[in-house]
Structure formats: C-alpha cells, structure tokens
C-alpha cells in the first residue's frame, strides 16, 4: 500500500511540484495551501506522514503542528521551511515534530525522512496494538 502523506505549503507552485515529485516515487499526496486547511484535513484523514511549511498565513506551521498533535498524536510531522532558524527547529521539535528540513530539500533526503517517519508510526501503532491485546488477555485472565 502506498504511503499516504499530507503537504501544507502556501507557496502553490512549490507545493504542486513537490507533490508531483513524490507521486512519481509512489507516494500518495494530498496538498493543502494553508495551516488551517492542514488541521481540517488531518482531522478527517489518517495520514501516514504530514509535511508542514513553517511560515503560512493565519495558522502557521507551528500552530498547525500543535493542533494536529492534539488530535493525531501518532502522526509524524516533518517541518519544512525556507527560513530554518535554530529557534524554529527547536520550537518545532519541542512541540513534537518528527523532523525538520530546510527548503529546498533534497528529494532523496526527504524520501528517506518520509520512510523513517512512516516506519516509526507503524512501529508505534504495533506497540499500542500489542499492549491492548495484552490488556484484554490480562483482564479476562487468559
């Protein structure tokens, strides 16, 4: 099954081109152009990985990260920015970002980060499933 990702970047042409480059690498991409739309879309769909631009109007990437982390704590989020200051990176990581990349990112490096983030999510979900099964077994004394 294809990895399903969400990209939020207000720079429309960058967003569209990056989406196409990921699609030719067998990634399924949903594009949105604001932090607000990213939060709304993340609530509706369970994405494997989310990529957020830091600087977006109204709801910034960091605001969107906070909101998405509240509703989808397991979804790994990669922050992408053209103004990668150390402060942005630290703040994003503190807020629970999986990783941070500076624009223009190398596509192979981004692919690597997407795969790592996806594997991390899968492993995390697997651990939760096992814990739930164990809990059921213990509750019933099996």
């Amino acid at each position: 099954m294809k990895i399903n990702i969400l990209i939020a970047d207000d720079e429309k042409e960058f967003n569209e081109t990056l989406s196409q480059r990921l699609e030719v690498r067998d990634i399924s991409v949903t594009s949105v152009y604001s932090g607000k739309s990213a939060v709304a879309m993340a609530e509706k769909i369970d994405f494997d990985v989310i990529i957020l631009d830091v600087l977006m109007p109204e709801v910034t990437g960091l605001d969107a990260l906070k909101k998405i982390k509240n509703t989808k704590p397991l979804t790994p989020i990669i922050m992408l920015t053209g103004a990668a200051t150390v402060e942005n990176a630290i703040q994003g990581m503190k807020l629970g970002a999986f990783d941070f990349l500076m624009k223009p990112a190398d596509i192979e490096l981004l692919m690597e980060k997407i795969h790592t983030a996806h594997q991390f999510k899968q492993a995390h979900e697997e651990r939760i499933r096992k814990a739930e099964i164990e809990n059921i077994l213990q509750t019933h004394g099996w």
Partner: protein
Amino acid sequence: METSNKKAMFFGKVTASVTHEIQNVLAIIKETSGLMEDFILMHKTNQVPDFDSKLDKCLETLKKQAYRGVSLTSNLNGFAHTPDNIQSAIDICETTKKLISITDRLFKQKNVSVEVCECTASCSITTDPVIFQMILFSCIECMIDTFQIQQLMVNIHPKENTIGICFSIGDENFQYPDFKEKIMQSSHWSKITDLCEQINFTAGMTPGSPKIFILVG
C-alpha cells in the same frame, strides 16, 4: 531608541522578508528542474503520458520563477542602495510600489493584500529615503495591525505644492466608528508621527472615513 537603530531594524525586517521570498523562488526552480529530470529518466525506460506538455509546463514554471526572482532581486538591490545618500530625490509612486513589492509577503502572512493605485502625475521629492520608506511601511502596518482587514489601498495625490499619500481600507462599506481612537492607541501611530517630524511631513486622519494620510512638502 535611536533613529539609526530603528533604520537597522527596518532594513532587517524587509531584507528577511524578501530573502525568504527569493528562497521560495529558488526552491520552486530546484523542484521543477528535479521534476523535469524525473520525467526524462522515466521517459528513457517507460513512455510518460503527455511527456512534451509536461516538460513545457515545467519550462513555463521555470521562466515565471526566473522573472519573479529578477524582479525581487532588482527591487532589493534598489532598496539596499537607499541609505547611500542622507537626502535624495525620489519618485514617491515608484518608491511606494517597489517597497510594497518586497514587503508583500509580510502582509500576505496577515492575509492582507496591499494595492497602490495608479499615479496620475509624477510626484518627486527630495528627502531622507530611508525614513520616507519607514513611514510608508509603518502606515501600512498601523492599518493592518489595528483592524481586521483584507485589503489596503494606497493612493498618491499630488496637489499644488503638496503630495498626499492616503492609506484606506479596501472595503468601503465597513464602518469603523472608533477609527481615530484605535489608531491613536496603536504603537505604530506614535512611531509614524515621530518619523514624520524628522523629515517635516505631516501625519493625519480623514474625519468620517477610515483613512490615514501623510502630507509631503
């Protein structure tokens, strides 16, 4: 704070915004050329549907971004040369348009579009070009930060020996009963009046309509 510090802060803010924009242009160019490379590589082994039109679209994007980059860098270069002389003759319309073109991203971040109405006559003045641009920028920030607006209009009216620069809210039907009070309370307003005093300009508000203006000359 000293004027030289304020000038440095203003330069930092504008430069940060425009270089961010240039980085975006370069990021698009990089991704678009990468996408072309992807298509060409795929085409060698597999037939890519609409290969020619896909390449044409990429080339169109590259051309558009190259023009955008050239415009940004030439306006930034012009801006960088403004402190060369303490006093210089400037065209108010041109300077206003160029300043807005390099600071546009800062306003778009606040979801506001700023438009300069076409000037009907040439409006030149000899003044401190940096302080003049700081006044323009502060007036725009004052209107945007004080009111929840989506559009701001900048009109330049030459009249006899005076030139008026007017900043008004795009939505003319919207009512702002306490406009004057809110502007007066804004931290930007005292900054505007201080800067105007330094170069003998006058800042004011139009009674009964949500506009602020600067009188030059």
